[in-house]
């Protein structure tokens, strides 16, 4: 009986062991190329050029507070606009017939397969002072509007690039909502507005949350879009990091900024996930 106690059945143990064996190449890989690099970021953030420990990089971050706030502001605005535009679209998609759903899905996906650089470039040409939009405006006799190199252009670029990421999760959650639930709600006396308010919207929240993270993270952290559309006065945190690493070669300061960026975003995501949990709990 004694050896019985130790065994979680031998076949189970063997299985578990071969599982670890099979995944070991990946485990090694992820330790070297996912975990270790993060330690380098931390290391560089707290050392100077000669490798001595210092808080200089962190204290220098004060100079970048404005850019941080501007980045988060732009990210928030872009995310909200994406949500406002994408939610009705996702709703329309989820409520249409199977064939139509498929086509709409494809149409929404297709531009995402184009490179972000190209998509941004196309807006750059559109928004220029002598671009098509301004040509059209002046053709109907109105004065040209200066759009390129403004925050407005940056937000347009962000929204254009990332709003499909908002549609997809909301749509996929909505399309899985059982139609019987809608009918049950109507049966229990809900009108169309109430069906939406009391059933569809709460149930679609998980999709909204993942959509928000999928849009917010890249719009806060990406570079290029702001640089191309917003001009030098609208640089975002991603552009600063890029400059530190690619142009100024100040890896230490760049690492410090990256570290703060990473921590900020992880905190945001944690808060979002907490929200999502609470919300779903409330519904249940």
């Amino acid at each position, binding site marked *: 009986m004694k050896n019985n106690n130790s065994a979680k059945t*031998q*076949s*189970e143990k063997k299985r578990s062991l071969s599982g670890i064996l099979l995944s070991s190449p990946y485990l090694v890989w992820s330790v070297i190329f996912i975990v270790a690099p993060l330690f380098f970021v931390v290391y560089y953030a707290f050392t100077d050029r000669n490798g001595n420990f210092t808080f200089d990089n962190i204290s220098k971050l004060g100079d970048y507070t404005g850019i941080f706030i501007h980045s988060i502001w732009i990210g928030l605005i872009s995310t909200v606009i994406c949500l406002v535009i994408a939610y009705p679209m996702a709703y329309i998609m989820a409520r249409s017939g199977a064939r139509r759903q498929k086509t709409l899905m494809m149409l929404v996906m297709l531009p995402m397969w184009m490179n972000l650089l190209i998509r941004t470039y196309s807006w750059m040409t559109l928004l220029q002072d002598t671009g098509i939009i301004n040509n059209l405006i002046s053709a109907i006799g109105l004065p040209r509007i200066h759009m390129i190199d403004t925050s407005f252009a940056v937000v347009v670029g962000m929204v254009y690039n990332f709003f499909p990421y908002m549609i997809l999760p909301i749509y996929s959650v909505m399309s899985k909502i059982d139609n019987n639930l809608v009918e049950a709600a109507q049966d229990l006396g809900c009108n169309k507005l109430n069906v939406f308010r009391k059933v569809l919207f709460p149930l679609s929240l998980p999709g909204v949350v993942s959509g928000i993270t999928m849009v917010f993270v890249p719009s806060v952290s990406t570079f290029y879009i702001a640089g191309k559309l917003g001009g030098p006065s609208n640089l975002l945190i991603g552009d600063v990091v890029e400059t530190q690493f690619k142009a100024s070669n100040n890896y230490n300061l760049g690492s410090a900024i990256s570290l703060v960026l990473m921590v900020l975003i992880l905190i945001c995501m944690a808060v979002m996930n907490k929200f999502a949990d609470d919300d779903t709990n409330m519904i249940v």
Partner: protein
Amino acid sequence: MSNVLLQLKNVSVRFDDDQILKSINLDICDKEFVTLLGPSGCGKTTTLRIIGGFVEPDSGEVLFDGKNLLDVPSHKRAVNTIFQKYALFPHLNVYENVAFGLRVKKTPEDVVKKTVKEMLSMVNLKGFERRNISTLSGGQQQRVAIARALAVNPRVLLLDEPLGALDLKLRKDMQVELKNIQKRMGITFIYVTHDQEEALSMSDTVVVMNQGVIQQVGSPEDIYNEPVNAFVADFIGESNILDGVMLEDYKASFSGHVFDCLDKGFDKNEAVDIVVRPEDVDVVEPEKGMLCGTVSSVTFKGVHFEIIVDINGFKWMIQTTDYSPVGANIGLYIEPDAIHVMKKSEYSGAYGDYSSFSDEIDKLSELNDGES
């Protein structure tokens, strides 16, 4: 039915803290149809998986033809399994599923062709060769699984609740068909089910299990007529289980009356459990009855009426073709051979009368429980 093919000796298994099997001993004969019967979680499926080679026992021996089976990996055992949800290979068509085992053994193509054809015609699936698995009905998938397992010519076929997913009518048909196949192939079937009716109608031998322990092994008739304890009596068929006292050989006292019976060999005045099957009770005029009581409910069941009679606070179930209205005073008459006397066991008192109908609840909980 004399030559023992498969022997389990003192087999024990535990998962984490659960003792799934407690030192099981079981002999299974060649060409026998054996059913492991019990409620979910009783260890019947684990026993089957040990024989199939998917669970290693923590202690004990399994002998096949007198040789140790535990050292043989599952793919080299002359034992094949019909899995609960068939486990047909979804990427292969019917023909390739049946041919799978033969292909693995590098059987020549003409033999494969012949065997698959034979097997498919045996399970009445001629003409289904090229069909995709996902286009088959449950019953058809079941047949493919049988053909696939039998194609490799096993000595023993293990069946894990194979009819569980089928509807009632199909189930009955498949029961007959499985029994026929077993006879025709002349191999051993070890069949796991929680359906007692299925077990009784198909098996040569029934093994009743509960909580990792074998309760009783015997022919269906033995199990039904001479249950060894209250658990078996309650699990197989309907029964009225009463506390009684064995006054002397052939004399039992229960429900305030002394009955003649056919049992002997108990101590004088030994406390015992008494089982009386509902269909063995005759309804007579009150003055002619050994026991007297008031009808508290009547249910029409088609072939018979099910009557609940209150006698001294104990609710008897009686199955009879004669109608008695609720409130009627009736007498019960019980022949000596209808009385089964059992030694007291750990299950004594666990199964009472029919005051609360527990059947439906039992069935519901069975549906909810996953099989282990």
